[in-house]
């Protein structure tokens, strides 16, 4: 590598271009399928849409104005919020509970850990179809079991007051596996000396978990809250398969609403749907910003 300095300059510049060549394949994909669509989404959101789904010219912020005066969309936002709360925290709490028990040096840990991680293998479609069968009001297992306790047939997915709870329940189940893997990985990486010191000092059981272990795995829990929230906001398959957004729109979340406006029944209302998509993007970006900014400082990092 002994090159005269003048030549070295051009060589380095050539190297810089070569480096860009390595980035290029990924950049092309990002450009065509992420960044351009992002611009296009913004453009669509300020345009009207004719019956055939073609943009019908600039309409300014009319779509956004419609959004926030449309009572249906306000319901969508509320449903999305409720669905997120009903799924994120319970799925983390249950996974944390299981992980802490598994961490307590019991027999067959490997077996249990693998078994409890199985929901992670399920796709949204496979899990939803199984839950669809379980929720079936006429011959589903859930009502079958309840009948032994004298409970009449429950309309899990068609009762307007119940449907969101049912879909959320199925979603919690889908998330347990992933959450458990993350928390278990965090517990596995805890420093042995700290735990041992605490144990020798007489801390055990609940005390050990609350005062020593919990603070040490806050990074994992915080990570799960953020990732889980974003993941829940993007949920679609379980709603499409289990309730199609109903009954009476009580399970129509933001993403399902985008689908409904743009694609269901050949609606092709791309302008209005794109405005909703931009709301989704904004919410996700705000949560990401919160992750980087405010909340991260309160988390216990080693």
């Amino acid at each position, binding site marked *: 590598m002994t090159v005269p300095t003048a030549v070295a300059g051009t060589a380095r510049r050539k190297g810089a271009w070569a480096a860009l060549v390595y980035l290029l*394949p*990924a950049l092309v994909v990002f450009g065509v*399928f992420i960044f351009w669509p992002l611009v296009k989404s913004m453009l669509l959101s300020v345009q009207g849409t004719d019956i055939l789904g073609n943009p019908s010219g600039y309409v300014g912020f009319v779509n956004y104005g419609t959004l926030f005066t449309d009572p249906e969309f306000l319901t969508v936002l509320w449903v999305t919020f409720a669905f997120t709360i009903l799924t994120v925290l319970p799925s983390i709490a249950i996974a944390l509970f299981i992980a802490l028990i598994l961490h307590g040096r019991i027999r067959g840990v490997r077996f249990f850990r693998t*078994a409890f991680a199985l*929901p992670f*293998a399920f796709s949204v479609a496979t899990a939803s179809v199984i839950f669809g069968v379980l929720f079936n009001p006429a011959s589903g297992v859930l009502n079958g079991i309840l009948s032994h306790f004298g409970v009449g047939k429950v309309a899990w997915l068609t009762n307007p007051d119940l449907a969101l709870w049912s879909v959320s329940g199925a979603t919690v189940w889908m998330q347990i596996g992933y959450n458990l893997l993350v928390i278990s990985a965090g517990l596995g990486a805890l420093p042995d000396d700290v735990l041992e010191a605490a144990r020798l000092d007489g801390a*055990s059981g609940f005390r050990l978990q609350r005062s020593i272990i919990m603070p040490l795995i806050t990074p994992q829990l915080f990570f799960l809250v953020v990732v889980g929230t974003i993941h829940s906001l993007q949920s679609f398959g379980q709603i499409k398969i289990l309730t199609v957004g109903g009954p009476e729109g009580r399970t129509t979340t933001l993403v399902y609403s985008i689908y409904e406006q743009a694609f269901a029944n050949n609606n092709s209302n791309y302008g209005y749907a794109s405005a909703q998509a931009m709301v989704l993007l904004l919410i996700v970006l705000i949560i990401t910003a919160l992750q980087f900014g405010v909340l991260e400082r309160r988390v216990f990092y080693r």
Partner: protein
Amino acid sequence: MTSTLDTSTSTEPQEASPPPKRPRRSRRNLGSYLILGVLFVIVLFPVYYGLVGSLMGERDTNSFPPALWPVHGLHPENYGDALDIIPLGNQYLTSVLQTLGIMVGQLVTSVLAAYAFVFLPLRWRGFWFAVFLSTMMIPFESIIIPNYLLISTWGLKDTIAGLTLPFLATGFGTFLLRQSFLSFPTELRDAARVDGAGHFRFLFSILVPLSRPSLAALGIWSALSAWNMYFWPLLATEDPKHQTIQIGISQLQSSDGDSPGMVLAGVMLALFPTLLLVIFGQRFIVRGLTAGAVK
């Protein structure tokens, strides 16, 4: 942290007395086993019922209350029925090709990009880094409409290209590999350079073979997410022959609600590959768990 430091100084005298703790632990364990057992039954029930239900006949599944195990014999023909009703064979092939395409694509683009980030004199590194990072913050659902319009106008609906193209690169994968490349010993890098290995040679005959665990982690994550995709394949395909298995089984349900056994058989077929991945590839999955921490 200070409290734990304080306590650790006062531990030595007690070090010789662990035996008395034994009984307490085992009593606690009994309670733990009990709770664990209950949770085990609840969490694993859908898995159990998916598998057992796929082998049950209509006499078991359609009576009320439905049977919880095959009382009236096993019905493996459910699997044949599922394969007959929808073009499941075609759909399986489509899913396999889509998964392989996305996996290989992501591995190639991520290896190249991560290499540039770690080993090459990249100009505006910070800028490009931010570009890759930003791709992880944009939910695909928020840009799915333009993607759909793009694939439609290019005439790529119902094709493998339409199913795979938008996902051939990943910020997550790039950062996962970058992390692994960063810990690559510089001595090896320098030795290779002295021996006259160019970038390409070094990348493919030294770095890639030595980074197999990370590549396996990325491969498994790509495969899992590609195989399990639902929203995009629902939009990018119309013809049942070209749909993926995920879409196929979800329509199996609506087309034949009266035969849960057959529906569940379809589910099991779709589930089989990912179940194997999760059982035998857990080590690699855990590796990639938090690499997407920015998502």
